[in-house]
């Protein structure tokens, strides 16, 4: 009875039928590449999982160089299910970044970025960058030797950028070197700045997807496409995939909990065989390819500059691919898309094996 009165109260004020009508009428094209559509919904689900597990961890984490490592150990050893939330957060982050890359490369190769979806692509690439920065900032929060050394390497690489590099490095580190200030800065990025920006961008990205609808690849014959309602057909499939991924993350969290090293000591030598997280391996491997000096120029500066240019080109790719925008085939950009994907894939494997 009480719920009925509550429902009536809302019904008198808001026309829910009208509000949810666009969702009920939403159609999704069904064709041979429709599997790739599910990666977007999966990213959204994993982001929500990350926010929930992250909020739980932030209740007990202490962002101070003296207590950070100890607080993580206490979360894992003393709190009920603390070990699970930390491990879940870690594995969910790994899979989220993997699915983000998959979503991004599938969009690139299927040319879903073409007119009129340029802004969708730009917001998506920025979200990928934010996802990676989430990973980098979260990695340091454990405040152990390995995280400390890896952050020093990652932020040091940014410093090699010409002109703005040193400023960016100092901004990220909160000083000249990685210190307790860097920890507080990364904590602030991880729990307040990046979540706000990511929520805004995810919202914008979802609104733009609703506005433009799903992109149909150029190679698909429009006659073969059948529109199916999002509710309930597509939504049920989405739910099944979310459930499967939830199960995989829970399994990994239980069977392979992430390690916690010794508390970071800025004066101690870095541990041997320092490797960045897997999503930085392709950059790490690229830097290794360049010699110390090329034509009198610093090799690392040249490498970081070229990587930055490649990332900028990647971000602005829809604006260069004019043929796709006109609905024509553009084999050059197909080759470029595959080159980006293969380079990332092979360099990551090489970095892993090195």
């Amino acid at each position, binding site marked *: 009875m009480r719920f009925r009165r509550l429902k009536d109260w809302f019904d008198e004020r808001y026309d829910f039928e009208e509000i949810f009508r666009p969702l009920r009428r939403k159609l999704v094209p069904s064709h041979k590449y429709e599997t790739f559509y599910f990666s977007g919904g999966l990213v959204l689900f994993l982001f929500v999982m990350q926010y929930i597990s992250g909020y739980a961890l932030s209740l007990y984490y202490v962002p101070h160089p003296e207590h950070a490592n100890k607080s993580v*150990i206490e979360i*894992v*050893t003393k709190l009920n299910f603390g*070990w699970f939330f930390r*491990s879940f957060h870690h594995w969910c982050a790994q899979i989220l970044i993997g699915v983000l890359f998959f979503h991004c490369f599938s969009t690139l190769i299927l040319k879903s970025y073409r007119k009129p979806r340029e802004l969708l692509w730009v917001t998506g690439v920025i979200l990928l960058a934010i996802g990676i920065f989430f990973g980098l900032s979260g990695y340091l929060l454990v405040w152990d030797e390995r995280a400390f050394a890896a952050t020093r390497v990652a932020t040091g690489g940014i410093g090699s950028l010409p002109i703005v590099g040193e400023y960016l490095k100092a901004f990220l580190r909160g000083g000249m070197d990685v210190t307790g200030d860097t920890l507080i800065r990364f904590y602030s990025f991880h729990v307040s700045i990046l979540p706000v920006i990511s929520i805004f961008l995810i919202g914008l990205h979802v609104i733009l997807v609703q506005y433009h609808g799903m992109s149909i690849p150029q190679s698909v014959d429009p006659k073969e496409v059948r529109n*199916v*309602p999002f509710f*309930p*057909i597509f939504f*049920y*499939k989405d*739910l*099944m995939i979310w*459930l*499967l991924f*939830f*199960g995989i993350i*829970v*399994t990994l969290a*239980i*069977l*392979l*909990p*992430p*390690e*916690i*090293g*010794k508390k970071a000591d800025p004066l101690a030598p870095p541990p041997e065989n320092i490797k960045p997280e897997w999503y930085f391996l392709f950059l790490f491997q690229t830097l290794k390819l360049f010699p110390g000096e090329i034509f009198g120029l610093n090799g690392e500066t040249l490498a970081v500059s070229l990587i930055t240019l490649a990332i900028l080109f990647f971000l602005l790719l829809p604006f260069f691919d004019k043929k796709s925008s006109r609905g024509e085939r553009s084999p050059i950009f197909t080759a470029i898309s595959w080159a980006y994907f293969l380079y990332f894939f092979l360099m990551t494997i090489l970095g892993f094996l090195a």
Partner: protein
Amino acid sequence: MMIIISILIIFYPSFSFSEEAIPLLPERTFDRLIIYETLFVIWVFIGALCVVLYMKLKEAKRVEDLKLDKEEENVPFLE
């Protein structure tokens, strides 16, 4: 499943690669057994939910194919 759980319980310490050997899971064998049992139950639950969703999906597709969800056009209003 029981064999896998037994192997995990027996060899778990070798999976832990922390230098200070910080226990990353509850240490008592009984607690670990409960955790692996819960994991098994979670997978059973996920499997059951997927079956239910699959059945609902099949029904939704049937309704869609028969066009039962569409309103018939030019239906006269009844007073």
